[in-house]
Protein backbone atom coordinates (compact mmCIF):
# COMPACT_ATOMS: atom_id res chain seq x y z
CA UNK A 1 0.00 0.00 0.00
CA UNK A 2 1.25 3.44 -0.86
CA UNK A 3 0.06 6.71 0.63
CA UNK A 4 0.43 10.09 -1.07
CA UNK A 5 -0.21 13.29 0.90
CA UNK A 6 -2.39 15.65 -1.10
CA UNK A 7 -3.22 18.27 1.53
CA UNK A 8 -1.09 19.46 4.46
CA UNK A 9 -2.47 21.23 7.54
CA UNK A 10 -1.86 24.65 5.99
CA UNK A 11 -3.64 23.60 2.77
CA UNK A 12 -6.68 22.54 4.77
CA UNK A 13 -6.83 25.85 6.63
CA UNK A 14 -6.50 27.78 3.34
CA UNK A 15 -9.26 25.71 1.73
CA UNK A 16 -11.64 26.29 4.63
CA UNK A 17 -10.95 30.02 4.62
CA UNK A 18 -11.70 30.20 0.91
CA UNK A 19 -14.89 28.18 1.33
CA UNK A 20 -16.01 30.51 4.14
CA UNK A 21 -15.57 33.53 1.90
CA UNK A 22 -17.45 31.81 -0.91
CA UNK A 23 -20.33 30.98 1.44
CA UNK A 24 -20.66 34.61 2.50
CA UNK A 25 -20.45 35.74 -1.07
CA UNK A 26 -23.12 33.39 -2.38
CA UNK A 27 -25.37 34.15 0.61
CA UNK A 28 -24.83 37.89 0.12
CA UNK A 29 -23.70 38.18 3.75
CA UNK A 30 -23.95 36.23 6.95
CA UNK A 31 -27.63 36.52 7.82
CA UNK A 32 -29.92 33.46 8.25
CA UNK A 33 -26.99 31.15 7.74
CA UNK A 34 -26.82 27.70 9.44
CA UNK A 35 -23.74 25.52 9.05
CA UNK A 36 -24.53 21.82 9.70
CA UNK A 37 -21.71 19.27 9.87
CA UNK A 38 -22.24 15.61 9.03
CA UNK A 39 -20.59 13.34 11.63
CA UNK A 40 -17.87 12.56 12.27
CA UNK A 41 -15.33 14.90 10.61
CA UNK A 42 -17.91 17.08 8.90
CA UNK A 43 -18.90 18.35 12.35
CA UNK A 44 -15.38 19.52 13.07
CA UNK A 45 -15.02 21.13 9.65
CA UNK A 46 -18.37 22.91 10.17
CA UNK A 47 -17.15 24.30 13.50
CA UNK A 48 -13.99 25.67 11.85
CA UNK A 49 -15.96 27.24 9.02
CA UNK A 50 -18.36 28.82 11.53
CA UNK A 51 -15.43 30.21 13.46
CA UNK A 52 -13.95 31.77 10.33
CA UNK A 53 -17.38 33.21 9.39
CA UNK A 54 -17.71 34.73 12.84
CA UNK A 55 -14.31 36.33 12.41
CA UNK A 56 -15.31 37.91 9.13
CA UNK A 57 -18.87 38.83 10.05
CA UNK A 58 -19.63 38.48 13.78
CA UNK A 59 -22.81 36.47 14.52
CA UNK A 60 -22.86 34.68 11.18
CA UNK A 61 -21.37 31.38 12.38
CA UNK A 62 -24.45 29.49 13.58
CA UNK A 63 -23.36 25.86 13.65
CA UNK A 64 -24.85 22.42 14.40
CA UNK A 65 -24.63 18.78 13.45
CA UNK A 66 -26.87 16.52 11.43
CA UNK A 67 -26.62 12.76 11.88
CA UNK A 68 -27.70 10.81 8.82
CA UNK A 69 -27.27 7.23 10.11
CA UNK A 70 -30.98 6.56 10.46
CA UNK A 71 -31.56 7.77 6.89
CA UNK A 72 -28.89 5.74 5.10
CA UNK A 73 -29.90 3.28 2.40
CA UNK A 74 -26.97 0.95 3.09
CA UNK A 75 -27.66 -0.04 6.73
CA UNK A 76 -28.51 -3.61 5.83
CA UNK A 77 -25.15 -4.37 4.27
CA UNK A 78 -22.99 -3.23 7.18
CA UNK A 79 -22.53 -3.97 10.85
CA UNK A 80 -24.88 -1.90 13.00
CA UNK A 81 -23.73 1.70 13.33
CA UNK A 82 -24.22 3.70 16.48
CA UNK A 83 -25.80 7.00 15.50
CA UNK A 84 -24.27 10.34 16.51
CA UNK A 85 -26.22 13.19 18.06
CA UNK A 86 -28.01 15.72 15.89
CA UNK A 87 -27.83 19.29 17.14
CA UNK A 88 -29.99 21.81 15.36
CA UNK A 89 -29.26 25.39 16.49
CA UNK A 90 -31.89 27.05 18.66
CA UNK A 91 -33.38 29.14 15.83
CA UNK A 92 -34.13 26.02 13.77
CA UNK A 93 -33.66 25.81 10.01
CA UNK A 94 -36.99 27.00 8.66
CA UNK A 95 -36.38 29.71 6.05
CA UNK A 96 -32.62 29.60 6.60
CA UNK A 97 -29.75 28.97 4.25
CA UNK A 98 -28.33 25.66 5.40
CA UNK A 99 -24.81 24.69 4.38
CA UNK A 100 -24.14 20.98 4.83
CA UNK A 101 -20.48 20.21 5.49
CA UNK A 102 -18.75 16.87 4.96
CA UNK A 103 -15.13 15.84 4.58
CA UNK A 104 -15.27 13.77 1.37
CA UNK A 105 -17.88 13.76 -1.40
CA UNK A 106 -17.94 10.39 -3.16
CA UNK A 107 -21.08 8.49 -4.26
CA UNK A 108 -23.44 11.20 -3.01
CA UNK A 109 -25.46 8.76 -0.90
CA UNK A 110 -24.54 10.37 2.42
CA UNK A 111 -25.75 13.74 1.09
CA UNK A 112 -28.96 12.13 -0.17
CA UNK A 113 -29.54 10.80 3.37
CA UNK A 114 -28.68 14.23 4.80
CA UNK A 115 -31.26 15.93 2.58
CA UNK A 116 -33.90 13.45 3.83
CA UNK A 117 -32.88 14.01 7.45
CA UNK A 118 -32.97 17.77 6.96
CA UNK A 119 -36.55 17.55 5.69
CA UNK A 120 -37.62 15.99 8.98
CA UNK A 121 -36.20 18.92 10.93
CA UNK A 122 -37.78 21.73 8.95
CA UNK A 123 -37.88 23.55 5.62
CA UNK A 124 -34.80 25.61 4.77
CA UNK A 125 -34.95 28.31 2.09
CA UNK A 126 -31.80 27.03 0.39
CA UNK A 127 -29.52 24.06 1.01
CA UNK A 128 -25.86 24.22 -0.07
CA UNK A 129 -23.09 21.67 0.19
CA UNK A 130 -19.49 22.27 1.21
CA UNK A 131 -16.85 19.50 1.14
CA UNK A 132 -13.15 19.46 1.83
CA UNK A 133 -12.46 16.93 -0.93
CA UNK A 134 -14.47 15.88 -3.99
CA UNK A 135 -13.09 12.59 -5.24
CA UNK A 136 -15.67 11.97 -8.02
CA UNK A 137 -17.51 8.71 -8.82
CA UNK A 138 -20.97 10.10 -8.10
CA UNK A 139 -23.89 7.61 -8.12
CA UNK A 140 -26.58 10.25 -7.67
CA UNK A 141 -27.28 13.66 -9.31
CA UNK A 142 -25.59 15.60 -6.50
CA UNK A 143 -22.80 18.18 -6.68
CA UNK A 144 -21.01 20.36 -4.16
CA UNK A 145 -21.35 24.15 -4.15
CA UNK A 146 -18.08 24.73 -2.30
CA UNK A 147 -15.08 22.40 -2.77
CA UNK A 148 -11.76 22.56 -0.95
CA UNK A 149 -9.98 20.42 -3.51
CA UNK A 150 -11.02 18.27 -6.44
CA UNK A 151 -9.09 15.01 -6.34
CA UNK A 152 -9.65 12.68 -9.29
CA UNK A 153 -9.20 9.13 -7.93
CA UNK A 154 -9.40 5.55 -9.05
CA UNK A 155 -12.18 3.40 -7.53
CA UNK A 156 -9.74 1.22 -5.64
CA UNK A 157 -8.01 4.19 -4.01
CA UNK A 158 -8.98 5.45 -0.56
CA UNK A 159 -9.04 9.02 0.71
CA UNK A 160 -8.06 9.50 4.34
CA UNK A 161 -8.86 12.79 6.06
CA UNK A 162 -7.22 13.40 9.44
CA UNK A 163 -8.04 16.40 11.63
CA UNK A 164 -6.15 17.39 14.75
CA UNK A 165 -9.28 17.53 16.96
CA UNK A 166 -10.53 14.05 16.09
CA UNK A 167 -7.33 12.27 15.06
CA UNK A 168 -4.43 14.17 16.62
CA UNK A 169 -2.89 14.87 13.21
CA UNK A 170 -3.88 16.96 10.22
CA UNK A 171 -3.56 15.89 6.57
CA UNK A 172 -5.35 14.30 3.61
CA UNK A 173 -3.77 11.29 1.86
CA UNK A 174 -4.66 9.03 -1.03
CA UNK A 175 -3.95 5.38 -0.36
CA UNK A 176 -3.72 2.78 -3.08
Amino acid at each position, binding site marked *: MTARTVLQAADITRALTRISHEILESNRGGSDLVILGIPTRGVELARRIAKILDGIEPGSGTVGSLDVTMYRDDLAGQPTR*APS*PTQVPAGGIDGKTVVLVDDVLYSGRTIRAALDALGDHGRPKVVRLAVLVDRGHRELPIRADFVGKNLPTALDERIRVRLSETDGAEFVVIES
Partner: protein
Amino acid sequence: MRHLLSTRELDRATAVGILDVAEDMADVADREIKKLPTLRGKTVVNLFFEDSTRTRTSFEVAAKRLSSDLVNFSAKGSSLSKGESLKDTAQTLAAMGADAVVIRHASSGAAQVLAQSNWIDAAIINAGDGTHEHPTQALLDAFTMRRRIHGRASRGHDLDGLRVTIVGDILHSRVARSNVWLLQALGASVHLVAPATLLPSELANWPVTVGYDLDEAIRQSPDAIMMLRIQAERMSAAYFPNAREYGRQWGLDDERLARLGPDTMVMHPGPMNRGLEISAGAADSSRSTVLEQVANGVSIRMAVLYLLLASETVA
Protein backbone atom coordinates in the same frame (compact mmCIF):
# COMPACT_ATOMS: atom_id res chain seq x y z
CA MET B 1 -26.88 -8.85 19.08
CA ARG B 2 -29.28 -11.14 17.27
CA HIS B 3 -32.09 -11.32 19.88
CA LEU B 4 -32.87 -9.60 23.18
CA LEU B 5 -33.92 -12.36 25.57
CA SER B 6 -32.35 -11.47 28.89
CA THR B 7 -30.28 -8.67 30.40
CA ARG B 8 -27.85 -11.34 31.56
CA GLU B 9 -26.34 -11.46 28.09
CA LEU B 10 -25.53 -7.71 28.11
CA ASP B 11 -22.05 -6.59 29.12
CA ARG B 12 -21.37 -3.04 30.21
CA ALA B 13 -20.30 -1.75 26.80
CA THR B 14 -23.31 -3.26 25.06
CA ALA B 15 -25.70 -1.93 27.68
CA VAL B 16 -24.26 1.58 27.57
CA GLY B 17 -24.40 1.37 23.78
CA ILE B 18 -28.13 0.63 23.86
CA LEU B 19 -28.74 3.49 26.29
CA ASP B 20 -26.74 5.85 24.05
CA VAL B 21 -28.73 4.94 20.95
CA ALA B 22 -31.87 5.48 23.03
CA GLU B 23 -30.67 9.03 23.71
CA ASP B 24 -30.66 9.67 19.96
CA MET B 25 -34.11 8.13 19.72
CA ALA B 26 -35.33 10.35 22.55
CA ASP B 27 -34.26 13.38 20.48
CA VAL B 28 -36.64 12.29 17.73
CA ALA B 29 -39.55 12.60 20.17
CA ASP B 30 -38.73 16.31 20.55
CA ARG B 31 -38.99 17.01 16.81
CA GLU B 32 -42.00 18.12 14.91
CA ILE B 33 -41.77 15.06 12.66
CA LYS B 34 -41.39 12.21 15.15
CA LYS B 35 -40.46 9.64 12.56
CA LEU B 36 -37.34 8.08 11.08
CA PRO B 37 -37.29 6.13 7.81
CA THR B 38 -34.77 3.62 9.14
CA LEU B 39 -36.83 0.41 9.28
CA ARG B 40 -38.93 1.03 6.19
CA GLY B 41 -40.00 -2.30 4.71
CA LYS B 42 -39.34 -4.26 7.91
CA THR B 43 -42.20 -6.06 9.63
CA VAL B 44 -42.41 -6.13 13.41
CA VAL B 45 -44.94 -8.43 15.07
CA ASN B 46 -46.27 -7.81 18.56
CA LEU B 47 -47.03 -11.35 19.73
CA PHE B 48 -48.82 -10.97 23.04
CA PHE B 49 -50.06 -14.18 24.63
CA GLU B 50 -50.74 -12.13 27.76
CA ASP B 51 -52.52 -8.82 27.79
CA SER B 52 -50.33 -5.80 28.40
CA THR B 53 -51.63 -2.68 26.79
CA ARG B 54 -48.75 -0.55 28.10
CA THR B 55 -45.88 -2.65 26.82
CA ARG B 56 -47.62 -3.50 23.57
CA THR B 57 -48.41 0.15 22.86
CA SER B 58 -44.88 1.22 23.72
CA PHE B 59 -43.42 -1.24 21.21
CA GLU B 60 -46.05 -0.17 18.70
CA VAL B 61 -45.12 3.51 18.94
CA ALA B 62 -41.42 2.61 18.78
CA ALA B 63 -41.83 0.45 15.67
CA LYS B 64 -43.92 3.06 13.92
CA ARG B 65 -41.51 5.91 14.69
CA LEU B 66 -38.89 3.85 12.87
CA SER B 67 -41.26 3.42 9.89
CA SER B 68 -41.55 -0.35 10.16
CA ASP B 69 -44.82 -2.14 9.50
CA LEU B 70 -46.36 -3.34 12.71
CA VAL B 71 -48.74 -6.24 13.18
CA ASN B 72 -50.46 -6.86 16.49
CA PHE B 73 -51.06 -10.53 17.19
CA SER B 74 -52.83 -10.54 20.51
CA ALA B 75 -54.46 -13.24 22.56
CA LYS B 76 -57.95 -11.88 22.85
CA GLY B 77 -60.27 -13.16 20.17
CA SER B 78 -57.55 -14.77 18.07
CA SER B 79 -56.27 -18.27 17.52
CA LEU B 80 -53.85 -17.70 20.41
CA SER B 81 -56.71 -17.88 22.89
CA LYS B 82 -57.92 -21.05 21.21
CA GLY B 83 -54.86 -23.00 22.21
CA GLU B 84 -52.74 -22.59 19.09
CA SER B 85 -49.22 -23.58 20.02
CA LEU B 86 -46.21 -21.32 20.12
CA LYS B 87 -44.72 -23.41 17.32
CA ASP B 88 -47.68 -23.06 14.96
CA THR B 89 -47.94 -19.34 15.65
CA ALA B 90 -44.22 -18.86 15.05
CA GLN B 91 -44.32 -20.75 11.78
CA THR B 92 -47.30 -18.68 10.69
CA LEU B 93 -45.43 -15.46 11.43
CA ALA B 94 -42.35 -16.77 9.62
CA ALA B 95 -44.47 -17.49 6.56
CA MET B 96 -45.75 -13.91 6.69
CA GLY B 97 -42.17 -12.63 6.64
CA ALA B 98 -41.83 -11.15 10.12
CA ASP B 99 -38.41 -9.56 10.69
CA ALA B 100 -38.82 -9.20 14.44
CA VAL B 101 -41.17 -10.77 16.95
CA VAL B 102 -41.86 -8.99 20.22
CA ILE B 103 -43.17 -11.74 22.48
CA ARG B 104 -45.04 -11.54 25.79
CA HIS B 105 -45.83 -14.96 27.23
CA ALA B 106 -47.02 -16.35 30.54
CA SER B 107 -44.34 -19.07 30.55
CA SER B 108 -40.78 -18.37 31.65
CA GLY B 109 -38.34 -19.05 28.83
CA ALA B 110 -40.88 -18.76 26.01
CA ALA B 111 -38.81 -16.12 24.19
CA GLN B 112 -35.68 -18.24 24.46
CA VAL B 113 -37.52 -21.32 23.19
CA LEU B 114 -38.65 -19.30 20.18
CA ALA B 115 -35.14 -17.96 19.53
CA GLN B 116 -33.57 -21.43 19.76
CA SER B 117 -36.19 -23.09 17.58
CA ASN B 118 -35.94 -23.45 13.84
CA TRP B 119 -39.57 -22.38 13.54
CA ILE B 120 -38.78 -18.76 12.69
CA ASP B 121 -35.69 -16.82 11.66
CA ALA B 122 -36.76 -13.41 12.99
CA ALA B 123 -35.11 -11.37 15.73
CA ILE B 124 -36.84 -12.21 19.01
CA ILE B 125 -37.43 -9.53 21.63
CA ASN B 126 -38.55 -10.68 25.05
CA ALA B 127 -41.32 -8.37 26.24
CA GLY B 128 -41.84 -10.35 29.44
CA ASP B 129 -41.75 -14.14 29.87
CA GLY B 130 -43.57 -15.51 32.89
CA THR B 131 -41.65 -14.77 36.04
CA HIS B 132 -38.29 -14.73 34.25
CA GLU B 133 -37.25 -11.46 32.58
CA HIS B 134 -38.45 -8.23 31.03
CA PRO B 135 -35.25 -6.78 29.57
CA THR B 136 -36.62 -3.62 27.90
CA GLN B 137 -38.19 -2.60 31.22
CA ALA B 138 -34.81 -2.86 32.95
CA LEU B 139 -33.16 -0.92 30.13
CA LEU B 140 -35.70 1.88 30.36
CA ASP B 141 -35.28 1.94 34.15
CA ALA B 142 -31.51 2.29 33.75
CA PHE B 143 -32.03 4.96 31.09
CA THR B 144 -34.33 6.85 33.46
CA MET B 145 -31.82 6.69 36.32
CA ARG B 146 -28.99 7.83 34.06
CA ARG B 147 -30.98 10.79 32.79
CA ARG B 148 -31.94 11.84 36.31
CA ILE B 149 -28.27 11.90 37.21
CA HIS B 150 -26.59 13.18 34.06
CA GLY B 151 -29.43 14.89 32.20
CA ARG B 152 -28.76 15.58 28.55
CA ALA B 153 -25.11 14.72 29.02
CA SER B 154 -25.88 11.07 29.72
CA ARG B 155 -24.17 9.56 26.70
CA GLY B 156 -21.32 7.24 27.54
CA HIS B 157 -22.11 7.02 31.25
CA ASP B 158 -22.79 3.83 33.19
CA LEU B 159 -24.36 3.69 36.67
CA ASP B 160 -21.15 3.11 38.60
CA GLY B 161 -21.67 3.37 42.35
CA LEU B 162 -25.42 3.94 42.18
CA ARG B 163 -27.29 2.23 45.03
CA VAL B 164 -30.68 0.83 44.07
CA THR B 165 -33.20 -0.80 46.41
CA ILE B 166 -35.88 -3.04 44.89
CA VAL B 167 -38.91 -3.73 47.11
CA GLY B 168 -41.66 -6.31 46.78
CA ASP B 169 -42.45 -9.60 45.09
CA ILE B 170 -38.95 -10.49 43.93
CA LEU B 171 -39.84 -14.18 43.59
CA HIS B 172 -42.40 -13.61 40.84
CA SER B 173 -40.94 -10.45 39.30
CA ARG B 174 -39.44 -10.47 35.83
CA VAL B 175 -38.72 -6.77 36.30
CA ALA B 176 -36.59 -7.49 39.35
CA ARG B 177 -34.60 -10.23 37.62
CA SER B 178 -33.83 -8.12 34.57
CA ASN B 179 -32.89 -5.16 36.74
CA VAL B 180 -30.56 -7.18 38.96
CA TRP B 181 -28.43 -8.40 36.05
CA LEU B 182 -28.45 -5.11 34.14
CA LEU B 183 -27.70 -2.91 37.16
CA GLN B 184 -24.80 -5.21 38.01
CA ALA B 185 -23.44 -4.89 34.47
CA LEU B 186 -23.71 -1.11 34.71
CA GLY B 187 -21.82 -0.98 38.00
CA ALA B 188 -24.72 -0.22 40.35
CA SER B 189 -25.28 -2.12 43.60
CA VAL B 190 -28.66 -3.68 44.32
CA HIS B 191 -30.43 -4.28 47.63
CA LEU B 192 -33.58 -6.41 47.70
CA VAL B 193 -36.30 -5.97 50.32
CA ALA B 194 -39.21 -8.39 50.64
CA PRO B 195 -40.91 -10.77 53.04
CA ALA B 196 -39.05 -14.10 53.07
CA THR B 197 -41.98 -15.73 51.26
CA LEU B 198 -41.47 -13.50 48.22
CA LEU B 199 -37.73 -14.06 47.84
CA PRO B 200 -36.26 -16.98 45.85
CA SER B 201 -35.10 -19.73 48.22
CA GLU B 202 -31.51 -19.53 47.02
CA LEU B 203 -29.95 -16.15 46.31
CA ALA B 204 -26.30 -17.07 46.72
CA ASN B 205 -25.58 -16.47 43.02
CA TRP B 206 -27.37 -13.14 42.84
CA PRO B 207 -25.17 -10.02 42.92
CA VAL B 208 -27.33 -8.41 45.60
CA THR B 209 -27.73 -7.82 49.30
CA VAL B 210 -31.02 -8.86 50.88
CA GLY B 211 -33.08 -7.60 53.80
CA TYR B 212 -36.59 -7.92 55.14
CA ASP B 213 -36.92 -4.44 56.64
CA LEU B 214 -37.96 -1.52 54.41
CA ASP B 215 -37.35 1.09 57.12
CA GLU B 216 -33.79 -0.14 57.57
CA ALA B 217 -33.29 0.04 53.79
CA ILE B 218 -34.58 3.64 53.79
CA ARG B 219 -32.14 4.52 56.56
CA GLN B 220 -29.35 3.52 54.18
CA SER B 221 -30.62 6.35 51.90
CA PRO B 222 -30.50 4.61 48.51
CA ASP B 223 -30.17 6.62 45.29
CA ALA B 224 -33.22 4.92 43.83
CA ILE B 225 -36.03 2.85 45.32
CA MET B 226 -38.04 0.66 42.97
CA MET B 227 -41.44 -0.51 44.18
CA LEU B 228 -42.78 -3.66 42.50
CA ARG B 229 -46.44 -4.30 41.83
CA ILE B 230 -47.97 -6.77 44.25
CA GLN B 231 -50.53 -9.17 42.80
CA ALA B 232 -53.72 -9.71 44.75
CA GLU B 233 -53.59 -13.48 44.20
CA ARG B 234 -50.43 -13.74 46.33
CA MET B 235 -52.58 -13.13 49.38
CA SER B 236 -54.76 -16.18 48.80
CA ALA B 237 -51.60 -18.28 48.29
CA ALA B 238 -50.43 -17.38 51.81
CA TYR B 239 -47.40 -15.33 50.76
CA PHE B 240 -48.58 -12.65 53.21
CA PRO B 241 -51.67 -12.20 55.36
CA ASN B 242 -53.48 -9.30 53.72
CA ALA B 243 -53.06 -6.02 51.88
CA ARG B 244 -53.10 -3.93 55.05
CA GLU B 245 -50.21 -5.81 56.60
CA TYR B 246 -48.26 -5.78 53.33
CA GLY B 247 -48.77 -2.04 52.94
CA ARG B 248 -47.72 -1.39 56.52
CA GLN B 249 -44.55 -3.48 56.25
CA TRP B 250 -43.44 -3.02 52.63
CA GLY B 251 -45.46 -0.15 51.17
CA LEU B 252 -43.89 3.21 50.36
CA ASP B 253 -46.26 5.48 52.25
CA ASP B 254 -46.04 9.24 52.76
CA GLU B 255 -44.25 8.87 56.07
CA ARG B 256 -41.54 6.67 54.54
CA LEU B 257 -41.36 8.97 51.52
CA ALA B 258 -40.54 11.85 53.86
CA ARG B 259 -37.60 9.92 55.22
CA LEU B 260 -36.08 9.36 51.76
CA GLY B 261 -33.37 11.71 50.57
CA PRO B 262 -34.49 14.69 48.46
CA ASP B 263 -32.90 13.25 45.32
CA THR B 264 -33.88 9.62 45.84
CA MET B 265 -35.65 8.40 42.73
CA VAL B 266 -38.97 6.67 43.36
CA MET B 267 -39.55 4.15 40.57
CA HIS B 268 -42.39 1.81 39.68
CA PRO B 269 -42.74 -0.28 36.50
CA GLY B 270 -46.53 0.18 36.52
CA PRO B 271 -49.35 -0.40 36.68
CA MET B 272 -49.40 0.82 40.29
CA ASN B 273 -51.63 -0.29 43.14
CA ARG B 274 -51.92 3.11 44.76
CA GLY B 275 -52.33 2.77 48.50
CA LEU B 276 -50.85 -0.73 48.55
CA GLU B 277 -47.19 -0.85 47.54
CA ILE B 278 -47.00 2.91 46.88
CA SER B 279 -48.99 5.86 48.21
CA ALA B 280 -50.49 8.44 45.90
CA GLY B 281 -48.18 11.00 47.49
CA ALA B 282 -45.10 8.93 46.60
CA ALA B 283 -46.32 8.14 43.10
CA ASP B 284 -47.00 11.80 42.30
CA SER B 285 -44.03 13.35 44.10
CA SER B 286 -41.23 15.12 42.27
CA ARG B 287 -39.01 12.18 43.18
CA SER B 288 -41.26 9.82 41.23
CA THR B 289 -39.95 8.81 37.80
CA VAL B 290 -43.08 6.91 36.83
CA LEU B 291 -44.05 9.05 33.83
CA GLU B 292 -40.45 9.42 32.68
CA GLN B 293 -40.22 5.64 32.71
CA VAL B 294 -43.18 5.43 30.34
CA ALA B 295 -41.76 8.05 27.96
CA ASN B 296 -38.32 6.49 28.03
CA GLY B 297 -39.79 3.10 27.23
CA VAL B 298 -40.44 4.22 23.66
CA SER B 299 -36.86 5.45 23.21
CA ILE B 300 -35.40 2.21 24.59
CA ARG B 301 -37.62 0.07 22.39
CA MET B 302 -36.72 2.14 19.33
CA ALA B 303 -33.05 1.62 20.16
CA VAL B 304 -33.50 -2.14 20.54
CA LEU B 305 -35.47 -2.44 17.30
CA TYR B 306 -32.85 -0.36 15.49
CA LEU B 307 -29.93 -2.38 16.82
CA LEU B 308 -31.58 -5.71 16.01
CA LEU B 309 -33.10 -4.87 12.66
CA ALA B 310 -31.13 -2.14 10.85
CA SER B 311 -28.25 -4.37 9.89
CA GLU B 312 -28.50 -7.78 8.31
CA THR B 313 -24.81 -8.28 8.95
CA VAL B 314 -23.94 -9.72 12.33
CA ALA B 315 -21.45 -7.35 13.90
